[in-house]
C-alpha cells in the first residue's frame, strides 16, 4: 500500500488561485475526509492530483511524481476517482461498466473478442457493492445511490490503491449513507481512501482523519475530535453562517 504526499501544491485559473500551497500527507490505509466551505479548493485539489488541471508543486504517490503526467497514465498508476455527479456509462449495463473499468491493461487480442461470462474480480465487485442482481440492467436505469456504488465498484475492479471520492453520499438516504460508510471502511483496510464531503454527520461517523481546507489552504488537520476543537475551524464555519454546514460543526456533537 502506498500513501499520498502533496507538497506546496498550487493551482490557479486566470489569476485566481484555487489551491494555494497545500501540504497534505495521507498515510497508507487511511480514510481521510477533506472538508471545508464551498470554494475551499477541495475538488480542485483532487483534479490536480488526477491530472485534470495543471498544477505546480509536487504530488507523489508511492514515491512516483504524478504532476505533469497525463490523466490516463495517472489512472494506470493506481489512482481512481469519482465525480460529484455520478458518471457511469448510461447505455451500457452494470456488468459492461465494470468490465470496462477492469480492462485498461488488456491486450489487443482480448479487446477484439467478445466477453464470455463474468470475470472473477467483476463478480466480486458486484457482490461488494451489492449490485449483483442488477448486473444486466443498463446503468442509466439505476437509482442515484446505486450509480455511486457502481462507481466505487468500478474503482475496485480498476485495482486502484488510492480512491478519491467527491461527495459520494450526496443525495443518499440515511440507510444508504450508512451502507456506503461501512463499505468505505472495509475498502480502506486494503487501500487508501480520500473523501470530499459536506455531510458532517457522515464525516463524524466514518472518518479516520480529517483535513479542513479553507481558501485554498489547509486550515487544520487531525482526528475528528481534534479538528472540531480547533478554534480556527470554528471561526471559519461560524464566519459563513449562510452556509448549510455552519450549524453542523458549530453544534458539535450536541
Amino acid at each position, binding site marked *: 500500500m502506498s500513501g499520498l504526499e502533496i507538497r506546496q501544491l498550487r493551482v490557479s485559473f486566470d489569476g485566481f488561485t484555487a489551491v494555494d500551497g497545500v501540504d497534505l500527507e495521507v498515510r497508507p490505509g487511511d480514510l481521510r475526509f477533506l472538508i471545508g466551505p464551498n470554494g475551499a479548493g477541495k475538488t480542485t485539489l483532487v483534479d490536480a492530483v*488526477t491530472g485534470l488541471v495543471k498544477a505546480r508543486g509536487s504530488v507523489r504517490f508511492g514515491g512516483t511524481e504524478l504532476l505533469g503526467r*497525463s*490523466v*490516463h497514465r495517472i*489512472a*494506470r498508476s493506481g489512482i*481512481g*476517482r469519482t465525480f460529484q455527479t455520478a*458518471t*457511469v*456509462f*448510461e*447505455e*451500457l449495463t452494470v456488468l*459492461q*461498466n465494470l*468490465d*470496462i*473499468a477492469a*480492462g*485498461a*491493461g*488488456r491486450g489487443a487480442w*482480448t*479487446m*477484439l*473478442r*467478445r*466477453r464470455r461470462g463474468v470475470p472473477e474480480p467483476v463478480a466480486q465487485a458486484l457482490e461488494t457493492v451489492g449490485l449483483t442482481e442488477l448486473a444486466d440492467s443498463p446503468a442509466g436505469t439505476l437509482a442515484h445511490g446505486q450509480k455511486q456504488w457502481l462507481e466505487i465498484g*468500478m474503482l475496485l475492479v*480498476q485495482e486502484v490503491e488510492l480512491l478519491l471520492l467527491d461527495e459520494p453520499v450526496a443525495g443518499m438516504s440515511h440507510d444508504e449513507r450508512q451502507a456506503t460508510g461501512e463499505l468505505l471502511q472495509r475498502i480502506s483496510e486494503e487501500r487508501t481512501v480520500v473523501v470530499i464531503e459536506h455531510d458532517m454527520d457522515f464525516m463524524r461517523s466514518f472518518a479516520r482523519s480529517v483535513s479542513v481546507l479553507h481558501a485554498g489552504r489547509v486550515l487544520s488537520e487531525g482526528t475528528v475530535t481534534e479538528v472540531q476543537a480547533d478554534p480556527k475551524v470554528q471561526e471559519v464555519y461560524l464566519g459563513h453562517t449562510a452556509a448549510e454546514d455552519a450549524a453542523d460543526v458549530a453544534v458539535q456533537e450536541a
Partner: protein
Amino acid sequence: MNVLKGRSARAWAGFAGGAFALFAVAPFALSDFRLGLLAKYLCMAMVAVGICLAWGRGGLLTLGQGVFFGLGGYAMAMHLKITDAGPGNLPDFMQLYGTADELPWWWRPFENPVFAIAATVLLPMTVAALLGLFIFRRRVKGAYFAILSQALASAFAIWLVGQQATTGGTNGLTDIQGFFGYDLDDPVNQRMVYFVIAASLLALIALARQLIHSRYGELLVAVRDSEERVRFLGYDPANVKLVAYVVAAGMAGLAGALFVPAVGIISPALIGIVPSIEFVIGAAVGGRASLVGAVLGALAVAWAKTALSEEFPAGWTYFQGLLFIVALAFLPGGLASLTKLFRRRRAVAQKSPVIPVGEAA
C-alpha cells in the same frame, strides 16, 4: 443468456437472408442495368458500415468519408487506366492534356496490381491514422471534428481538380474498360463485379458486427458517451477513437475501389463535400448505431436518389437536406430505433398479467 442466443440467432438469420437476396434473388430479378445500379448502391452501403462504427458507435461525425472513398477509388482507377493503356503507353487523358512524356513517379507503383489492390485499403487507413493521431491527440471533437472532415474532403477534391495533367482534373479518371483482364463492357463480367461487391459488403458487415460486440465495441460506446470518464479508468480515448476511424476509412477505401469497376469512373464530384454528406445521410436515416439500419438506410437513400432525380432532377437536393434534418431532429436513432420501440411495446404488452400465456412463447 437466452437473450444473447436469440440475438445471435436473429443475426445469423438476417445475414443468411441478406446473402440470399444479394446472390440468389437480385441477379435474376433485376435487369443488367438495374443490377449495375444495385452494385453502386452496395458500395454506398459499404461506406455506411464504417460510418455506423465511427459515428454510430464512436460518436465521430465523419463528414469527410469522401476522402477515403476517393483514395481507394483513385488507387484502383490508376491501376486500371495504366493497364487499359497497355505497356509503354500513357493513359488517354495524359496524352490529351499532359506535358510529360512518361508516367509521373507517383503513378508508377500503381502499375503493380498487388500494390494497387493493397493501396485501395491501406492508403486510406494510413492517411486516417496520421490525421486521426493529430486530431484525437489534440482532442478535437464534436462539430469541430465534423467541420475539419468536411474541409479535408473539399481540399482533396479541389487539389484533384487542380492536377489536370496527372489526375484528369474535373473529369476524373473515366472510361475504364478492363478489370484485371476482364472486359467491363461484357455483362457477364459486370455481374462478376456485382458479386465481388456483394460478398465484400457481407464481409464488412460481419467484421463490423464482431467489432461492435467485442470488448472494444463496448469501450467505444463508453468513449462516445463519456470520454473523460474513460480517461480516468486508465485508457487513452484517442487510441480507441483512432481504431474506429481507421477501420471506417479502410471500409470507405474498399468501397471506392469497387465503385470504379462497377460504374467505370471516379472523379472529384464523387468524393467532395456533397457526396461526403450523402454517405452520412443514409446511415442517419436508417439508424447510425444499428448496422442493419445504416446499411438499409444507405441503400434506400441511394435508390431514392436515382428514382427521384430521374423524375425531379432539381428537387432531390432539397429533399435530401430535409431528410437529414428530419431524421436528426425527430428520429436521432433513425428508422432502426422504431423497431426497438415496437419491440419494447410488445414486451410491455406481454408482461401484462392479463395474458400470462404469452410468456411461454
